[in-house]
């Protein structure tokens, strides 16, 4: 970035596509006005900005291998910026800064077995890596995808998910915490941790990649612990409050016994070995 540039001036991106995924989550397809590419890595995020409302960090959910130069954001309406975005229409513009942060180590994972564990909206950042891996299928070994939601209507990317289920070269399991009687659901019922014991894990070869709501991590990690998966073979993507995305504002700092990390720069993707002693992390 040129030194005369403001770090805080977003670039304009136009909404070129919009799709409802669940009652409160939408997928947005965006294109920079100036035609440039985002050039992100799976697991990185952008600061999404709406003038008059504010900014929010959002993971890029599309894989850099697909659909470029446009990129996709999967956004749940929970607050000011996200609600405002949901009210916007195709053709309107938003501001984008980024991509920021350290994403998944796609290189390091090459040649290994992968176990994806996604809870709810956690699928958003994972989808980027999953599709990246599928587009470079030969570089990776076995692929397991576990995806859990509260209830069937909250499952997202149904077409892609059913594609995973159809593919022979992927092991995929979906689960919901509960299923209302009137809804037809073919997957499992129960929390996502219940799926983990059923997965065959080659302890030397498997990397687990986990993303979900804060409460999920503790229980998933307990299950992986039972499997004795080495800690440095687990990657997690964490959420924190962020006001700049670039390591200045101080909000996303996580303190540990020996060191402290910034979710926006050192993360949002962390190796579990590195943060396991951090009381504040999980």
């Amino acid at each position, binding site marked *: 970035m040129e030194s005369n540039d403001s770090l805080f001036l977003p670039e304009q991106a136009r909404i070129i596509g919009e799709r409802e995924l669940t009652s409160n989550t939408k997928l947005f397809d965006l294109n920079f006005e100036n035609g440039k590419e985002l050039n992100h890595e799976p697991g990185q995020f952008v600061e999404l900005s709406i003038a*008059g*409302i504010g900014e929010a960090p959002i993971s890029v959910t599309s894989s850099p291998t697909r659909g470029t130069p446009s990129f996709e954001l999967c956004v749940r309406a929970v607050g*000011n910026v996200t*609600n*405002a975005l949901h*009210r916007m229409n195709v053709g309107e513009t938003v501001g984008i800064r980024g991509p920021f942060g350290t994403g998944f180590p796609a290189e390091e994972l090459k040649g290994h077995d992968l176990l994806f564990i996604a809870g709810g909206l956690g699928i958003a950042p994972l989808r980027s890596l999953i599709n990246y891996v599928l587009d470079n299928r030969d570089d990776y070994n076995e692929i397991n995808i576990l995806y859990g939601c509260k209830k069937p209507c909250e499952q997202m990317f149904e077409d892609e998910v059913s594609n995973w289920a159809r593919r022979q070269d992927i092991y995929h399991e979906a689960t919901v915490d509960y299923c209302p009687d009137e809804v037809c659901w073919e997957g499992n019922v129960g929390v996502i941790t219940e799926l983990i014991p059923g997965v065959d894990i080659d302890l030397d070869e498997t990397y687990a990649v986990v993303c979900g709501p804060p409460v999920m991590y503790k229980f998933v990690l307990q299950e992986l612990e039972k499997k004795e998966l080495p800690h440095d073979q687990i990657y997690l993507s964490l959420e924190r409050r962020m006001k700049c995305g670039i390591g200045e504002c101080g909000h996303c700092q996580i303190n540990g016994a020996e060191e402290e990390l910034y979710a926006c720069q050192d993360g949002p993707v962390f190796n579990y070995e590195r943060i396991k002693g951090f009381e504040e992390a999980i």
Partner: protein
Amino acid sequence: MKPESVKPKVAFFDFAGCEGDQLQVANMEEKILDLIEVVDVVNFREIMTERSEDYDIAFVEGSIATDHDAERLQGIRENASWVVALGSCAAIGGINSIRNSQPYDLVQDRVYGDDADKIEAWDVAKPIDAIVDVDGYVYGCPINQDEFVHVVESLLQGKDPNIPTYPVCVECKMNENVCVFARNPEKNAANIKAAVDNGSPAESGPFCLGPVTRAGCDSQCVNEGTTCWGCRGLVPNPNENAHQEVLEKYGLSVDEVINKFNLYFGWQQEELKNEQ
């Protein structure tokens, strides 16, 4: 989001209060003209004759202390999509709640003497959210115009206004005031020493409620040379005990501390007690 072509209709109502908050709105001068660009003011008894029962946003000023007022407020609630408490009397009971801690027969007697029976009012004054659901709050006695604008602007844009949850000290420090507790070091030191030596301070000390009061006023009273009186009410999680200790350490008696907390916090303290 742009304001829709149909402007939202805004109404102002007042109950027991000084109407100083509506005056703050009237005092916006030219900005009022901007305001009526984006909303239709359909009811503002203080400055206009027309009135309409058809409105979207109701700003309500003043506390509730009679059955008649409570019914009127319920009517407003039914008509409006959004009810916003305007000012401390409506939002937290405000100065009206001073009397809540006084025995009601004494209150009546002091003011109306033998005619007390002619007066019908509740034994306590309540903020409006004790009667109806409230969608937004503009704190302050009087309200801060910028915050009012922010709340209106937020409502129009469908976002939650950003109302500070931190105490007044934050703004006070940003304004680089000399803290009330640092203005008279000799006297403070003597007080603290006396408290240590004989168990009670020598002289009534300084007081500031800034450390437990919700910010948003830009620490205006301290800027003007006085002290934070607590008019915007308590922060969501006040450390009242620690603050009480501070006030006592600097020389306030327990009674004095209670009196200061009662200036504006009367109703909120009752609520905190009930929660526990």
